[in-house]
């Protein structure tokens, strides 16, 4: 096959080729982006640990479980530690500066979550001081929190009676090695919250949001979960105990039609780009009609003419696709940072890249096949009569 001709045909119309490649770059980038957003939705599910269970109210996420449950859960066979998690729901200066905060049992939390790694500051300080907190690296860099800083948070759910914000002292900054814990959360001591509620310094609901149970090695998850729920079947609050993965999955399920919606957008993007590529290839083929006639007259087979046209399409699309994938990969760190609160777990995964490669090749073949087929079936004398 005349490879040089392939190359020269593409570079001859450099503007058209650049624009075509450019639009494919954008489309493939967009496709990777959309796909990564969907992946981000259930990133937590996939990264969940198998040795942790989550106990929550069977009625509602917003219903609190009695404090007394902690001791009762701890007694169940196979339970190693029980850790309280309470949603704090505060904000920093403005309600729009949202990030998650949880009050938790610090010692149990640190044992149950080995993936949480303190990269600055000290775990010891976090353990020791009641007002100490551990901040996710993304949140720390977003607001410029440093170790030793005082972070004032306004408690929307737990308003202080004096009308002042709560004060937390940054003892450490963490980074999670897995996506089930995002890098934007602030963790602090349950005791701090409890004391404030008891003393009347703060209003707000009492009780515990969820209990995170760490299992003994080798314990049967299903049996332990069943035993816990059994204990509270008669009330006062019925519980539902799930694996961490199931717990995370319920949030994904709540998102409803979003994945379908995002896929539809992806389809639209693909169709638009397919048409653009096809348009270019048809234009190129029309201009090369006479060339095709010459090649055939010289004795090039129908097959090699077919190959010539489809290779041009594949090269243009492949170039665009490769650059789109590179762009998606290159912007990944920036987007992870920008989307840390709305889509924690944003990641351009290998699967996404595979999909992008597949789509790229698909577009290349699809856009090239019509002109290639036409060129293959072109009669030499008709082709030679064509005006360039």
């Amino acid at each position, binding site marked *: 096959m005349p490879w040089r001709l392939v190359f020269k045909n593409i570079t001859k119309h450099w*503007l*058209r080729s650049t*624009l*075509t490649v*450019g*639009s494919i770059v*954008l*489309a493939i*980038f*967009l496709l990777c982006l959309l796909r990564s957003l969907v992946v981000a939705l259930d990133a937590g599910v996939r990264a969940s640990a198998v040795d942790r269970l989550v106990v929550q*109210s*069977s*009625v*509602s*996420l*917003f*219903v609190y479980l009695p404090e007394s449950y902690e001791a009762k859960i701890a007694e169940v066979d196979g339970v190693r530690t029980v850790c309280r998690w309470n949603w704090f*729901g505060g904000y920093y200066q403005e*309600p729009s500066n949202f990030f998650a905060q949880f009050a938790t049992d610090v010692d149990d939390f640190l044992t149950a979550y080995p993936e949480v790694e303190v990269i600055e500051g000290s775990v010891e300080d976090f353990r020791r001081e009641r007002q100490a907190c551990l901040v996710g690296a993304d949140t720390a860099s977003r607001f410029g929190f440093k170790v030793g800083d005082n972070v004032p948070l*306004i*408690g*929307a*759910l737990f*308003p202080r009676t004096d009308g002042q914000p709560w004060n937390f002292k940054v003892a450490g900054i963490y980074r999670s090695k897995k996506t089930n814990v995002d890098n934007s959360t602030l963790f602090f001591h349950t005791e701090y919250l409890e004391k404030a509620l008891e003393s009347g310094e703060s209003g707000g*609901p009492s009780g515990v949001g969820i209990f995170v149970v760490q299992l003994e090695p080798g314990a049967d998850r299903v049996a332990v979960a069943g035993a816990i729920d059994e204990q509270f079947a*008669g*009330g*006062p*609050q*019925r519980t*539902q105990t799930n694996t961490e993965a199931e717990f995370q999955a*319920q949030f994904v*399920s*709540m*998102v*409803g*039609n*979003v994945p379908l*919606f995002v896929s*539809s*957008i992806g389809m*639209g*993007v693909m*169709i*638009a*780009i397919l*048409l*653009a590529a*096809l*348009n*270019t290839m*048809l*234009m190129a083929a029309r*201009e090369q009609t006479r060339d095709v006639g010459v090649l055939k007259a010289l004795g090039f087979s129908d097959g090699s003419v077919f190959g010539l046209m489809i290779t041009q399409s594949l090269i243009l699309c492949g170039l665009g696709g490769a650059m789109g994938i590179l762009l998606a990969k290159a912007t990944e760190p920036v987007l992870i940072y920008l989307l840390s609160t*709305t889509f924690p777990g944003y990641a351009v995964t290998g699967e996404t890249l595979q999909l992008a490669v597949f789509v790229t090749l698909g577009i290349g073949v699809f856009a090239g096949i019509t002109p290639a087929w036409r060129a293959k079936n072109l009669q030499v004398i008709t082709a030679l009569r064509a005006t*360039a």
Partner: protein
Amino acid sequence: MALVPLSYNVRSLWVRKSATFLTVLGIGATVAVLAGVLALRSGFQGLFRDNGRDDIAVFLRQGSTNEGDSAFTRERAEILTKTLDVFEQDASGKPLVSTETYLAVRMFKTDGGETNVPVRGVQPTTFAIFGDDVRVLEGRTFTLGADEVIVGDKIASRLRDGGLGDTIQFNTTPFRVVGVFHHAGAFSSEIWGDRDRLMEALERPVLNRVIGRIKPGVDIGWDDEDDKPKSGLALQLDADPQVPCKVMTERQYLMSQSAALGAVLLVLGQVLAIIMGIAAVFTATNTMLSALAARTREIGILLSLGFKPWAIFLSFLFESMLLGLFGGVVGCVLAYPIHGTETGTMNFNTFTEVAFAFRLTPELLAQAVGFSIVLGLLGGAWPAFRAASMEPTRTMRRE
């Protein structure tokens, strides 16, 4: 001054049918995607905005952002309902004000997934406040003091156990579904029951909000732009020594509840518009460049006949504008079937699922077509410039 006849452009588009067709369809797909996102946003926000009322006031605890956070003890709620003299009265002279309890309850969807459904405990006056806006379609309304609920028509079929005659278990207490009710707004994605029965079954110690129909002329005075009290009732209650609280119109409250998802959709729409728009401009440029190549001789003839370069420029620009216009129309036609399609998604503000329909308004369609015309003009600018700067002697030489 002489303009190049517009019929030349139409004919030129017709002669290169396949390129025209593909470009129009490509721009159409871009516009359709965009229109889809905007229709989703418009459907979602419209559900809240258009069905919120200005003559209904919503009272929330200070510092809370939604009724899930908000809490009033019975005593404090009573102070509000009894002492404030701002409410309309019904025929018997009772003020149209009620207190509600609210909880997002976990339920299973018919497709097996889990979702959070708002369960609202209401009082008889609640129905009086909303009047005809809330009406029972099937069955009957719940009986006061009974373990009965009515389900919004948008979710009745989406929920397992949500149909008429089914039983829903709240913690340890079973409730019977005795009716399906309709509301044009977000209430149609909720379950309503007797306030006191639900407070007991769900072990809610507190009330979530107070809601009342306001007398004409009362200034509520909430500034939703700055999210703070500005005047009138809002300012007065903000500084109230007994029950300090937030008050806003129902419309303002509902709009604040749709802000987060609305903003996400807006950003998504903008990102898509920019990225896909650039790609569409590239396509249009390519098509116009091929038109330019095919019409080089014609341009030469026109120029040598005395047509001015700017006339050629405008002619090309007009042609690409036509491409954009057709693309926009095709996009609207492609997107139109989603108008009215029911969908559901989680509202980030309330953590509950809300059902609504895509809505393509005339303004939205106009926006979409306007956008596509801009795409066409941008795509045509460079080829038009190239066409206008051709020299007649060169264009007519044999290729």
